């Protein structure tokens, strides 16, 4: 046998010769590859280092986020390595940019552990983000195949069941975050909760950094808050809630807090994004098992979502959180004090609330996404919004959203109850007018003025904040526009 064996030089042989060869030649650049319906797809914004070929940079991203290392390894040949490689199948220049490229990468679904955001992200945003040949790298969007979506629980409660439990239909929900966010004692804190709920809000909220500090330990906050919630329910005949933040240093502490919240009859608990993906999935599982709505505050996200060149787009974080199983997620206001381009926010809201998203580049959605019956996440709009913007908020954000007016409730000149009432009246008046077929975008201010005739608190709110806007240029914007402008 040996004497008849021949060594045939060819692509197979040279591919595995020890040494370093370009990623593009290792199989990670596959321009002819047609993505399968079952593939996980990702699109990255790549800024190659000067002198680095964009195709090579894109192939390197595909490689480093899947099977590759910097040099050839013979052990690849012990595997069906062609199937395991991430494949960059398309690369295009970012419109209007000389140095940035969109690289589309397909991954076989078998690369990922079922039901684990930690595993998915360890690949997709793992080592690859520190890779030297790219100056900057941003994960813009992902397409999660139905087969993979179905391995996740999804939102513990979802929009439909949340509304049924709360008995609140046909309008956005109203909330507020207790201010000042630090320093109030449990008893004083509960006062703010009671006033805001009795005045007309549906929810009040702990802020992200209210956990268990010397001025207010968590049990004290929970006890006083639930007195406020129940008392407000008795005054109004409505279901009321307060997002009790269960964020803590360990999973054991979080479970202890969440169980106490349940024991006290709270309908909702809250976590911060900084607890990490696995902890979020654990809390979602707990929430599903305990009939609890799970609110997620996106603390920390701006460190990696805001700049367009590097990091992870929030639309991807939103998709991961829908898989992970949260019911509420802060997702932008458009008009408030925090970052939020209208088109970007619309795309994020769609991916949280729709059952199927068509590709929509103008809204930053690079792929079609089928959510396969996964429940819908309620987006939360919070940060620098007030009653005078109600028509804009309803126009941009629609009905299935929690509008949170913190300063816009607690800072009201006539007090917290009045602030809450102003927001509720403004909201109901605007929904009524919209349903009647009025053009709320243009007639909004008149609709609010008319509603204020029977509501002095609304009049005072409109007078106090009438000129407050936050008109700054967004840093996170979409790259595709509907029509080219003549210039």
């Amino acid at each position, binding site marked *: 046998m040996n004497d008849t064996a021949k060594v045939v030089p060819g692509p197979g042989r040279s591919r595995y010769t020890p040494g370093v060869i370009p990623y593009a030649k290792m199989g990670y650049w596959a321009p002819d590859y047609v993505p399968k319906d079952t593939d996980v797809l990702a699109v990255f914004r790549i800024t190659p280092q000067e002198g680095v070929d964009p195709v090579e940079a894109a192939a390197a991203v595909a490689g480093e986020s899947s099977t590759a290392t910097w040099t050839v390894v013979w052990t690849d040949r012990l595997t069906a390595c062609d199937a395991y490689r991430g494949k960059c199948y398309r690369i295009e220049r970012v419109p209007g940019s000389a140095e940035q490229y969109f690289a589309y990468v397909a991954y076989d679904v078998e690369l990922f552990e079922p039901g684990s955001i930690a595993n998915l992200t360890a690949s997709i945003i793992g080592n690859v983000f520190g890779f030297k040949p790219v100056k900057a790298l941003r994960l813009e969007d992902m397409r999660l195949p139905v087969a993979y979506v179905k391995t996740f629980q999804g939102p513990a409660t979802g929009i439909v069941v949340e509304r049924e439990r709360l008995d609140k239909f046909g309008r956005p929900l109203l909330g507020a975050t207790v201010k000042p966010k630090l320093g109030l004692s449990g008893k004083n804190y509960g006062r703010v909760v009671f006033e805001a709920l009795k005045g007309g809000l549906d929810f009040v909220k702990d802020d992200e950094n209210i956990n268990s500090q010397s001025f207010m330990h968590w049990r004290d906050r929970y006890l006083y808050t639930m007195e406020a919630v*129940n008392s407000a329910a008795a005054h109004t*005949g409505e279901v009321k809630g307060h997002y009790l933040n269960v964020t803590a240093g360990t999973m054991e502490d979080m479970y202890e807090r969440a169980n106490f919240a349940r024991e006290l009859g709270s309908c909702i608990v809250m976590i911060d994004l900084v607890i990490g993906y696995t902890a979020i999935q654990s809390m979602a599982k707990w929430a599903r098992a305990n009939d609890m709505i799970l609110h997620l505050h996106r603390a920390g996200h701006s460190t990696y979502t805001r700049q367009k060149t590097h990091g992870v787009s929030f639309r991807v974080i939103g998709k991961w959180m829908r898989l992970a199983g949260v019911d509420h997620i802060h997702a932008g206001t458009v008009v408030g004090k925090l970052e939020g381009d209208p088109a970007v926010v619309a795309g994020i809201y769609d991916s949280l609330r729709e059952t199927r998203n068509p590709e929509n580049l103008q809204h930053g959605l690079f792929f079609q996404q089928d959510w396969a*019956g996964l429940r819908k996440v309620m987006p939360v709009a919070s940060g620098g919004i007030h009653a005078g913007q109600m028509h804009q908020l309803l126009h941009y954000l629609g009905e299935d959203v929690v509008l949170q007016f913190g300063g816009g409730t607690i800072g009201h000149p006539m007090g917290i109850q009045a602030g809450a009432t102003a927001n509720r009246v403004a909201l109901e008046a605007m929904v009524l007018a919209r349903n009647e077929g009025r053009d709320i975008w243009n007639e909004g201010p008149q609709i609010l003025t008319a509603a204020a005739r029977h509501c002095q608190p609304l009049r005072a709110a409109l007078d106090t904040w009438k000129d407050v806007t936050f008109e700054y240029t967004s840093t996170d914007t979409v790259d595709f526009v509907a029509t080219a402008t003549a210039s």
Partner: protein
Amino acid sequence: MRVTQGTFSFLPDLTDEQIRKQIEYSLSKGWALGVEYTDDPHPRNTYWEMWGQPMFDLRDAAGVTQEVRACREHHPECYIRINAFDSERNFETVRLSFIVQRPTIEPGFRLERTEAAGRNVRYTLHAYATDRPHGRRYGGRET
């Protein structure tokens, strides 16, 4: 007090004209209108009495307002609400629900507190109206 359940309870009571416009909006969305009434306003009282089944085949606002009128005549001292039901996949739930009649006097709720272990308190919401039997809950009038 004023029970503020429903989509428009913070506004002055809707006029018949305003009610008609909300019904027309719901019909334009393809939702089925239903009329429900109760004399138990507890927020966890999910199942109000149905004034007939949801009107899945009715596409005319006048037909709905007629049912509201009839329900009001039979139950002048009850809460009456209109629900708009959406049977679209992934909703299959109420999309709009608003009160169109209230009792003359709304006595409200008592909050009962039962002290439990530690500093825990068990809360129970009790509607004063339900101290009386069905039919005699509001002003003793037949409802």
